[in-house]
């Protein structure tokens, strides 16, 4: 999960997967999102070198890849922490105390939105609706959804993560 770009680009397995993805779609370009997902899962983020590599593979411009990477919230073009906390910031969650929760998380971890803790454990982000408006405030840590999270519960939850 934490390979460097060079390691990844010299990884035979990875290159084989890329070739496979290219053939999967009627048009090569369509493989872009799948490739990005693959890279993200391999590296944790999509570095500039990888972006350029994909651009070359798919005969697109690097700028275009950059546009796609920055467009989707789940792609990262910079290294992120081991765990990702996504806090819903939409109105229902905010009304249910999302703001207080977010501030609690922020002070507890000592980071602001979009930042990573110095030990590389946590990255904090706000997202639009997590589709749990009836059970706000909602947060998502990595791929696990937590609803009706109070600050105290949050403290309990994060104990399980390394």
């Amino acid at each position, binding site marked *: 999960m934490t390979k460097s770009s060079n390691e990844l680009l010299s990884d035979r397995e990875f290159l084989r997967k890329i070739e496979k993805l290219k053939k999967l779609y009627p048009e090569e370009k369509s493989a872009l999102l799948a490739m990005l997902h693959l890279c993200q899962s391999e590296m944790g983020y999509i570095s500039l070198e990888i972006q350029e590599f994909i651009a070359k593979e798919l005969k697109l*411009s690097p*700028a275009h890849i950059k*546009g796609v990477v920055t*467009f989707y919230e789940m792609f990262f073009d910079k290294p992120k922490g081991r765990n990702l906390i996504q806090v819903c910031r939409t109105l229902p969650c905010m009304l249910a105390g999302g703001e207080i929760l977010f501030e609690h998380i922020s002070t507890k971890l000592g980071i602001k939105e979009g930042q990573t803790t110095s030990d590389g454990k946590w990255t904090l982000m706000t997202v639009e609706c997590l589709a749990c408006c009836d059970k706000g405030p909602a947060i998502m840590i990595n791929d696990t959804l937590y609803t009706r999270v109070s600050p105290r519960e949050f403290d309990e939850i994060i104990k399980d993560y390394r």
Partner: protein
Amino acid sequence: MALVWIDGKEIVVEKNETLLQAALREGIYIPYYCYHPSLSIVGQCRMCLVKIEGMPKLMTACNTYVPELPKEKKIDGKYDMKVYTRTEEVKEARRGILEFLLLNHPLDCPICDQAGECQLQIYSYEYGNARSDFRFEKLHFPKRVELGEHIVYDAERCIKCTRCIRFCNEITKTQELTLIDRGANTYVDTFEGKKLNNPYSVCTVDICPVGALTFKEFRFKERVWFLQGSNSVCPECSRNCAIRVDTYKGEIMRIVPRFNPEVNNYFMCDFGRLLSERIKNKELRNSPAIKENGAFKVKSEKEFYTTLLSKITRKYNSNEVSVILSGRMTNEEIEAYKVFSLIVFGEVVGEFLYVTGDEDKILIKKEKRANYFGAKTLKMKFTKENEDVTHLIKNKKLVVIIRENVFKGKKEEDIKKNAPSLETVVTFDTFFTETAQLSDFYVPLAGWFEMEGTVINFNGQLQKISKCITPPKGRKPFYDVVSTVLTILKDMDTSDFKSEKTKEIESIKKVLEEFKNREVMNKGFYPWFKEVKNAIPEIKNLSLKDLTSFGIFLKESGNG
């Protein structure tokens, strides 16, 4: 083909035409930002909303094609679509769109270079609210980003119309630009380390409807409402892109492309555009000068030409004379040169220097001088491609150079070595170049933007250049120089020519006599333009009025 009713006007819309294109063609006013005639259609800005009968919502005119309805379904029995562009609903929608566009737009018109030609200003004035209801802090974006060598980007001013991105994708196909991030945080950027440095990059500034992209060389130089635009033609290659030269108080501030569908569409290359920067700080002289004891001495016009003519007129055989001409000469100047040569050398001598360079498939052409095809049409001789000039001056006694810097980077000894017999070098040029410094006689000519004339491009398009700035009195176009020469010759004592052959003097007189009645003695552009008309049969009956800003197409000239 469909019939559309727009605000009471019946318009026929072609099949591949959108509503906006049809409306603009018919002079119906619909505001837009992202639409550009030579770019693809994206419907990004939503400014061109119109009311279409039968549609629940307002539609963007720029990407609405008109289908042809079956006969029984036609509205009012004959229309395929009924469109309203001036209802309150539409105006309200435009006001709303403008408010959205201006939510995070800084109010910095006083320092913005686009102010005065900014579409946001124009439409705000027309549709916008006097003040915004947005009371929160505006979003902040990167400012003063150097996207490329000549381009500065201000993301706060950007309205994300993506014209620049589409230009790079579709016209230059270099694809440097992209939209970064999403939603309200979107802005334009390049990939790291890959700047917007293609040969047409500054065109993005032209097509930017707001002040987000600014031309670095023109940045903060002058407000656009002070500028005076004059139509001209780019002299840097045989494409002859139509340009507008913006001047302020006799100084060229910038060069922008002018729409000419036959030549350059809406664009021009950066090289041509930066001509305005290149001609700055070049040494200029304002009166003719003669080299005496190694230093140039300024002479009065009459004294100068008397000395010059008595030194060169019919003194050499034509094989002792070499005249190097330039594709920077306009048709009128070429025609005037023919007269000059006829009188001074007894026949039309001289070769055009054929300078070539890179070319691409968009605009830049191989021939690096503007008027080769004019010279070709006027039946002048050319040198071979990019030839060295040494053999041209070898064994010659007199060398006349017009508008070319042939001795660039050469010293006097080099020339002496190549051409020991060389007696006199006469240079006619705008700038006081190295060649001019090495010559014995130097005549300053009016520059490309300082004179009137006509030029013919590679495709046979005849265009007119106009006087964008007025040069000082001593700097004239070459045709005015020839007019002066003719006037002075008329008054000169023939014994000054130092020619023993009375026959030749008689022939000079004969030529003079002929030209006396042809009005070319009167200085100015028009009589020489008449000469050009006489020389090219195709435009015999052309008047200056017929020469619109697009110019006219000559079938016989040109490559194809």
